[in-house]
């Protein structure tokens, strides 16, 4: 007897059963954990829900949290469309932040105020793209595994950033504490609705739309998809896969860089500790929960941000570790993986003698 995966006669699950299939085991796993530490699961989920959506302030904070997630989610998604694994969004985010901070610190006050924000956006994008450049070149030239190379560059970027704010960029007026000086006003991203929601939100939404359009409705997008789905077909069609790989990874890195720019110039207003807190890795979850669809990315980012902000409330109110949101994220990703398979296949127990040639 053994388990056998079979293709279903009519493939595809409806959206409602699919959602249930994903949500139910995830919530159940969380409930089991809450029980394990002696908490009431229903009450715990209620606290999380209230923490994420209980009032306008909490909702706005979910949006704030979602901004970097949207951008890194898009970054992972666009690369994955071409079967490229950009695990290096964290480093690209940091490098985008470094570039934006460098510009804001040393050039912004010399420029007319209206010019600063657009240049900051460019700097953030350029920083992220630059950090993706070496893995991209290695991949295109020698087919060097980008999972490891981008991952290793994450560590390097964080060390570089620390060196900068502990060393040459340290605020001379900061009494020796780590962190750069606060940026000049013109380099602060505008905020909206008296909350911390900043320009990054609109940059992220714009990027999602732009990617959706260019991936789905342009010849470039068509090429990227073809190269991703079938490198052989791409070769027949004479697409230059290498050049596209570089382009896609640069765009991907740039998007992550924008996320870093948004955090640095929209929230921290200086370069300091607390920038590399895992948005790059969360972006991978966002991208796959969104099935690599750029339009779905912002929605999934919101969901994940809600989970994180809600989990934090659980910690504040009920003293349960906020890491429950990580557990739920992991389960969510596993459930999605399984659901993707089960929407087209089913698992059957077969006896060995039953199996034909």
């Amino acid at each position, binding site marked *: 007897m*053994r*388990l056998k*995966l079979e293709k279903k006669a009519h493939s595809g699950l409806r959206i409602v059963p699919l959602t249930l299939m994903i949500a139910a085991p995830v919530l159940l796993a969380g409930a089991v*954990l809450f029980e*394990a*530490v002696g908490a009431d699961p229903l009450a715990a989920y209620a606290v999380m829900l209230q923490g994420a959506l209980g009032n306008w302030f909490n909702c706005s904070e979910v949006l704030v949290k979602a901004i970097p997630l949207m951008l890194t989610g898009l970054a992972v998604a666009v690369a994955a469309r071409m079967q490229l*694994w950009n695990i290096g969004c964290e480093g690209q985010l940091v490098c985008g932040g470094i570039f934006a901070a460098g510009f804001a610190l040393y050039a912004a006050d010399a420029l007319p105020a209206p010019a600063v924000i657009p240049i900051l956006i460019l700097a953030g994008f350029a920083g992220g793209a630059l950090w993706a450049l*070496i893995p991209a070149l*290695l991949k295109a030239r*020698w*087919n*060097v*595994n980008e*999972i*490891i*190379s981008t*991952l*290793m*560059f994450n*560590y*390097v970027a964080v*060390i*570089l950033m*620390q*060196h900068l704010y502990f*060393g040459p960029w340290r605020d001379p007026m900061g009494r020796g504490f780590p962190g750069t000086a606060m940026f000049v006003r013109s380099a602060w991203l505008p905020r909206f609705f008296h909350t911390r929601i900043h320009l990054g939100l609109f940059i992220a939404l714009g990027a999602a739309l732009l990617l959706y359009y260019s991936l789905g409705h342009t010849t470039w997008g068509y090429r990227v998809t073809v190269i991703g789905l079938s490198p052989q077909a791409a070769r027949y069609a004479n697409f230059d896969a290498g050049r596209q790989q570089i382009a896609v990874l640069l765009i991907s890195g740039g998007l992550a860089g924008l996320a870093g720019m948004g955090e640095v110039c929209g929230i921290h207003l200086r370069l300091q500790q607390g920038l590399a807190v895992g948005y790059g*890795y969360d972006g*991978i*979850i966002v991208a*796959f929960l969104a099935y690599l669809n750029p339009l779905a990315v912002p929605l999934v980012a919101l969901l994940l941000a809600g989970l994180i902000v809600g989990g934090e409330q659980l910690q504040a109110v009920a003293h*349960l*570790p906020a*890491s*429950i*949101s*990580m*557990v*739920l*994220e*992991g*389960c969510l*990703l*596993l459930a999605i*993986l*399984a659901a*993707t*398979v*089960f929407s087209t*296949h089913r*698992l059957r127990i077969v006896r060995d003698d039953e199996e034909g040639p």
Partner: protein
Amino acid sequence: MDDLIFIVAITLKSSPAVLLASLGELISERGGILNLGVEGMMLVGALAGFVTARQSASLALGLCGAMAAAGLLALLHAFLCVHLRADQVISGLAVTILGTGLSSFLGRPFIGQTGLHFSSIGGTWIDGLPLIGPLLAQQNLFGLLCLAAVPALMYLLGRTWLGLYIRAAGQDPAAADAAGVPVAAIRYGCTLFGGCMAGLAGAYLSLAYTPGWKEGMTGGQGWIAIAMVIFATWHPLRALLGALLFGLLNALQFYFQATGIELIPAYILHMLPYLLTVGVLVLVTVLEKPVLGSVPGALGKPFSREE
């Protein structure tokens, strides 16, 4: 000379976790399954090992607990990758996220508690051995046993039918299947083995190296282990070399500070292990298989008979 012995001793002692995890990953990858869940499995193993040893007052049971907990995560990964033919990269990442979250969530009450741990073998006749005495005295039994895993795995991979099966399942599963190799079972076994080794690696941290449970105590060593497999070009002996080199670079970084010699700025030294890994990765890829070793041909690709 004393300096040298000391550096070697530190290196030996700080590398077993990376070594164990990368040996496990190596077998898993040789069987064709990429396991990016090592970091999560290590954390779960570290917690489970510490807690089991503490509750049962037995180090051996602690190790079993670590293997069991991490092994369960590995089975989950194997089920998704082998039976469901799901994407191995995402599945591995999911396992890492899940493992990190689980260990942090369940481990909160154990932060800072003291429990059992392996102590160093010094203070006995071992101290008196010429040359290697002072070196060995600072090691513990667990760490030394880890070294034994290297020749064992070399023998297994190179000289036994099981090793042949494993290599076949990772190299060309279709051909292996035709030759009667139970590819699915082999891949399950390899992934499970990888998980158990990652669990042991975690337990090395929580029971031997820095005794006690600390949130996120692996500090990225799981990822380093994965990189080390490429560094090792899928060969156990070179995995040992990689783990030692990594331990050495780590030790050197502080050694320079402590001695007050600064040949290279500390932050550059700190970056070196990561940059070196990328460097070796490039070399391995550019020089291709015949020179250095073999990238398992079907690594990361699901296998099914029908297709």
